[in-house]
């Protein structure tokens, strides 16, 4: 049984949660404490799978508590349940929590969020995936540019010039970022000719994401395996990112959706470098049996590129929403949605962007099953199917002009 710890300085909040969640006592083992110090004490006695905490509390506040928990017990899922709206942005930026639920929350929202976190936790801790990852000689490192730009983003007084300097320090990287900005998916009315312009047009986080992706792909070693090459992987990532970007433009999840699009197949990067023979075997198996490639991968590796990629991104400390979207992008039905999020955007963007594209490796493409109008409803998408198609095509049309 999963163990969940609730922390809130307001006794009535805890008691009401305890009463409402009593129905779940067969599924979760729940404890309720009213301070951060007590929570840490309980964690020391026996770690919990999930901790749900208020932010503003006297003494140790939620941020301090989660930071301590994150360092000492990284396996524990950290969720914020807070009524303090101004903290939400800060929490998004500094990933001390995996999820943020604002008070007052919908009747079953908290349970859904906890379940979802536990699901991802289970997927990434699946013994066969762990075994596979354990076999890998080495996992790629998170590009340094990510942490360098992240430091700039966290600094309240950071200027555009500072962010631009970080990127421009590596001229080759800067050139690749500009190429991405101009060629891919941003429907920009004019050509962006320097990084500073790019930062001011697209924002700090978009540039961080693009620079990180550019650097990841530039680290590519070795040639093609099973017909998988860098060029193809990158082009596919960009096409999907263009679609997810078009679907989320102007919303707070746009930056994460873009990053998820760019990196959703990063698992192939690991597989092609670390176990090329097995990947070839999976490709062959998919062709022979007429099954989807990720299903064949599951048979060969015990996990697919989706879970492996998510595992890598999780280790890198990329935003939780991105890790989750990448992990589930081939099996979105296993997730219950409470609002339109990065996973929904990635799945829909993936289905629409790759309609006429080949897959990353040259196998027969199996259409993403069950991704249709009813899926849009299930993920609370703020558009219908036709609107989604139009948005994605508009994005594609304009990106072709630049290319």
């Amino acid at each position: 049984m999963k163990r969940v710890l609730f922390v809130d300085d307001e006794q009535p909040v805890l008691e009401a949660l305890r009463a409402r969640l009593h129905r779940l006592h067969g599924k979760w083992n729940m404890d309720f404490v009213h301070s951060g110090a007590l929570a840490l004490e309980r964690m020391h006695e026996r770690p919990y799978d999930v901790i749900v905490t208020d932010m503003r509390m006297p003494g140790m506040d939620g941020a301090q508590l989660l930071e301590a928990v994150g360092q000492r017990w990284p396996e524990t899922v950290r969720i914020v349940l807070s009524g303090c709206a101004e903290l939400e942005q800060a929490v998004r930026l500094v990933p001390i929590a995996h999820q943020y639920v604002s008070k007052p929350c919908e009747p079953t929202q908290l349970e859904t969020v906890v379940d979802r976190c536990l699901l991802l936790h289970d997927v990434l801790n699946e013994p066969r995936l762990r075994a596979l990852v354990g076999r890998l000689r080495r996992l790629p490192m998170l590009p340094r540019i990510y942490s360098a730009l992240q430091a700039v983003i966290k600094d309240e007084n950071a200027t555009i010039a500072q962010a631009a300097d970080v990127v421009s320090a590596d001229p080759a990287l800067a050139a690749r970022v500009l190429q991405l900005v101009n060629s891919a998916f941003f429907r920009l009315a004019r050509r962006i000719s320097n990084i500073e312009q790019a930062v001011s047009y697209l924002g700090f986080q978009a540039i961080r994401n693009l620079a990180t992706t550019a650097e990841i792909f530039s680290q590519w070693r070795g040639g093609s395996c099973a017909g998988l090459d860098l060029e193809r992987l990158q082009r596919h990532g960009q096409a999907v990112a263009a679609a997810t970007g078009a679907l989320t433009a102007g919303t707070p999840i746009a930056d994460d959706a873009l990053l998820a699009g760019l990196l959703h197949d990063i698992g192939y990067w690991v597989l092609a470098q670390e176990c090329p023979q097995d990947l070839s075997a999976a490709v062959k198996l998919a062709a022979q049996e007429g099954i989807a490639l990720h299903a064949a991968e599951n048979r060969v590796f015990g996990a697919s590129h989706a879970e492996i990629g998510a595992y890598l991104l999780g280790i890198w400390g990329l935003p939780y929403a991105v890790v989750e979207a990448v992990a589930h992008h081939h099996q979105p039905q296993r997730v219950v949605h409470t609002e339109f999020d990065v996973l929904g955007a990635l799945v829909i963007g993936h289905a629409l962007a790759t309609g006429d594209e080949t897959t990353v490796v040259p196998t027969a493409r199996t259409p993403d099953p069950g991704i249709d109008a009813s899926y849009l409803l299930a993920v609370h998408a703020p558009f219908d199917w036709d609107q989604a198609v139009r948005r994605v095509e508009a994005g594609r049309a304009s990106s072709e002009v630049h290319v």
Partner: protein
Amino acid sequence: MNAILAVPAAPAAERLRLSLATERVEHARLQIELALCTSALDAASTHFMILDVSRSPYRIVYVNRAVCESHGYSPTELIGQSPEMLVCEEGSREALKQIEEAVCEVGAVSVELVGQRRDRSTFAVGVKMMPLPASVPGVTHYVCIGADITSRLAQDRAQRDLQERLIAEMRERERMATELRLAQKLESVGRLAAGIAHEINTPIQYVGDSLSFLQSAAADLQNLREEYRRAIKRLAAREPAEDVLSPVESLEAAIDLEFMATEIPKAFQRTLEGVERVAAIVRAMKEFAHPHGTDHSCADLNRAIETTLAVARNEYKYCAQVETRFGAMPEVRCNVGELNQVFLNLIVNAAHAVGESGKDACTGRITIVTSASTDTVSIAIGDNGCGIASENLEKIFDPFFTTKPVGRGTGQGLAIARSIVVEKHGGRIDVESTVGKGTTFTVHLPIAGRGSPRPS
């Protein structure tokens, strides 16, 4: 003289000689007197001029040195000439007309003229003209007493300009003060809004959770009731008791009847309490905003402080406990909405000071003491926070003075508090502070309101 007296002479000639001599003496005396008068007039910086006005144009009969020097002529060049050569007609027409009229009526006149020098440059001159009494009746001469008033006029103009600038500056300051007050009010409203949202979200969260629980509990109890009904029917049909009771008991266990029995009353209690908490906050907000504009009316300041504390709870509850010691207070004539802002600013400052000193809700303390004397009331808001350095103590009421980091207030809070208390209510604010120990701000207000004698 001795010789004259000593030697007698022929009587007629002697008399003539004597009178001639006397006359000569007299003449010499007069000449000396005239020379004295002339040199005195020449020594004066005031312009003197005598005009013969018996016919037009007038003629200059006498000028002193000041006139000559001001205009750049020698006396001989002026005497016998028309005074028109000393005046620039342009700009003096009105004055010249006044002079002419005055001369006609044999009256005195004071005018300002534009004087003209030999080189045709001009200067301002003030002139007083009076008929000379010796020549009345049938006046023929006027004396003109004048002065170069260019510098005085310039001074006047400078003074006027200065005055205008001062007035404009005061207006600008007033405008800025109004804007700042508004900005500060907006800032405090914005900060409060976020705090109040948090204050309301918390009870809404547990009211919602409690109601969800009650809803599912009601459904469970409904099922249980149906199970009981079935059991009654089956017992009535004389079915064996064990068979009948076992589904009832298992349902009771499944819905955890024990838990419900204890939790349902608590859930109702929590719900009512939460609704009351929200209602109290909303009431406090309404009172705090106090939409009475600039009106001054009688108000209970203890109550106003309680309202402000309720609204600002989120600002201090994580860093300090608030202790209130309210004395008996008469109603005070004031604008309570503005005073609420003063209390809010002082309470928020106290909370920040306590927070900065690293204290928390257990060790931090804000103490509010109210008291009244015959004609004033005092509200002391003290904290055990970081205190104010003595070099900053005199600056804290200056607009824009702040020691807080950017983004933590405009530095207007105390300036505005001071302006409201001192200027709008005729009161005063005292501050006492010890670094590391804490600060106390004391607001003194006249009970009868603005316009009554200031509290000393």
